[in-house]
């Protein structure tokens, strides 16, 4: 509901024809969110003591690993312009798999194999220019 409200305020100065369709969607969003809130309040008053929602049921046991995974994705984007795509893929896979507790031998073989396969597919086979980076330009 807060999200819908924020978007409604953002669309305040749009011309009528540009704003009509998104505002119609936002109105539907408001109505559905309202219905959802009413249902939630009703079901809460019915099952006091049972505090698990459908969403919580799907929450997994180790969210720390999810943040490590997301962080690796961000680090990968930051490293790629400087290291180039082969080296950054190699580095990121080694960091990620080591943090996930995979054996060093497996980690190295997966990292080297994946980087090599990506190079063959994207650069050699498809001819796509991938970021070379400062380090890779010096090396190759």
């Amino acid at each position, binding site marked *: 509901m807060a999200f819908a409200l924020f978007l409604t305020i953002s*669309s305040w100065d749009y011309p009528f024809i540009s704003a009509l369709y998104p505002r119609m969607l936002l109105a539907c969003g408001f109505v559905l969110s309202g219905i959802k809130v009413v249902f939630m309040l009703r079901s809460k008053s019915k099952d006091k003591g049972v505090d698990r929602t459908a*969403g919580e049921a799907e929450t997994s046991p180790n969210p720390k690993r*999810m943040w490590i995974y997301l962080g690796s994705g961000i680090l990968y*984007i930051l490293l790629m312009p400087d290291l180039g795509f082969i080296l950054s893929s190699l580095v990121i*896979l080694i960091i990620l798999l080591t943090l996930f*507790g995979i054996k060093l031998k*497996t980690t190295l073989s997966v990292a080297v194999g*994946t980087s090599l396969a990506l190079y063959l597919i994207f650069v050699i086979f498809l001819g796509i220019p991938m970021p070379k980076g400062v380090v890779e330009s010096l090396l190759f």
Partner: protein
Amino acid sequence: MILDTLLIGFSHFLSPYNLLAAFIGCLLGIIFGALPAFTASMGVATLLPFAYSLPVDTSLVLLSSIYVGAMYGGSIPAILMHTPGTPGAAATVIDGYAMAKKGQADTAIVVSAASSSIASFVGGVFICITGPILSFYAARISPAEIFLVTLLGIIVLGNLAGKDSIKGLLGGIIGLLLGTVGADFVVGHDRFTFGIYQLYEGIPLVPALVGLLALSECFTMVQKESGELVAVSEVRFSLRKILSDTWDTIFGKYWKDTYLSTFIGGVIGFIPGEGAAVANFVAYDQAKRHSRNPERFGTGIPEGVIACEAANNSVVPLALLPALALGIPGSSTAALILAGVMMQGLRPGPGVFERSPDVMGTFLVGLLAASWLQLLIGLLIVGPACKLCQIKNSILAGVILVLAVIGVYAVHYSFFDVGIMLACALLGYGLKVWGCPPVTAVVGLILGPIAEKSFTTALSVSGGSADIFFFRPVAAILWGIILFSILFPWLRRKRKEMHSKISQEG
């Protein structure tokens, strides 16, 4: 027109690129399907950027072959390891694993591959006939009705994709709102860009889809470490046994089960949102009801495997039919394939067979070819597929991350796109945690621009009057279906409650 399309398609399909795409698509699909943490939609989402660099017909053949292959691939770990590779193979475990334990793993795999192939083929033939006809008549409907059809697609998917229909619909609205980001197509005013000029053309589709479907799934995947999977037996095939089991499945003693389940899967596949997972169990249940020996189901009989596998594979062509002919995807994988071809300039939906007979013909012939290729490849790679099933979730997720980042970057050579992908992955994960399947947002995002365009066009045609959406015969029928779709989950829940009340009282 149908024959012309097929002949053009056949001549295009015979190019080395398309043949290779069908082969690689089937191979990858079977591997993706066999990996318990990987689904067909994740596979297609991950390969979407790669497919973008191929010609549109080759890309369509590749993606649809992955879809076909993945449906069969899911049965390999279901039979040998008691773990379905895809949700669509969940019921295959019941008789498949029991057969493997009895030492009949080879028969279970062969009947699974044969029934999957014939079901895909029959479904493919059906869409060869009906696809052009459906698309031809759909092209004659007005923008107001196109808007209602897209609305129907979102409502039905929102209802059926999740347990909570309101959350499903809200997911669809989030997707539709994401589709409004950027310049509107009437006056070009930018909306919800917040000063980010890269968003002026809208949220890029490939990064959004890869993030919402593939990476958000990886966020969940890395948190659960996969258990140790061990195959119950080594599978050895003999040519004679393969031929006799294939014959029995297609023409011999199991033919009734094969075609009945193909029909059930096809009907379920055509309904948006009802996918292979539902078809699998419904067909198993029906096969049991129609059997002379229902008590033998669950003890390890080929009929049990055939029912599930024929049903889940016939879902594939029938889920692709509304996606390509009407622009309404029948499943999440179909939605991704639809988005993939849209990005390459093909306009799926009404009239697509008339506009692009070469692409659609190649797709149809490719689908028929993939049906039989999966039988051949499926039997050859059972051993390696079992080995791949033992890969840990973390390794798989790491490889997907690298592949997704590189693939998305390669589409427009833009790191901004990669950032969008990560943001969408977080959004998809958030939706999942909240209890709303991200696929509803994906469908909203894909159908959003079509819905807005038809909505605005219809309003300008009618001079600003909303009557055009109601007072036309086709529109009235569509409103009837929409209302039924909204009330359907509520009616179903009420019926369930009544049944449980009656059984409690009993």
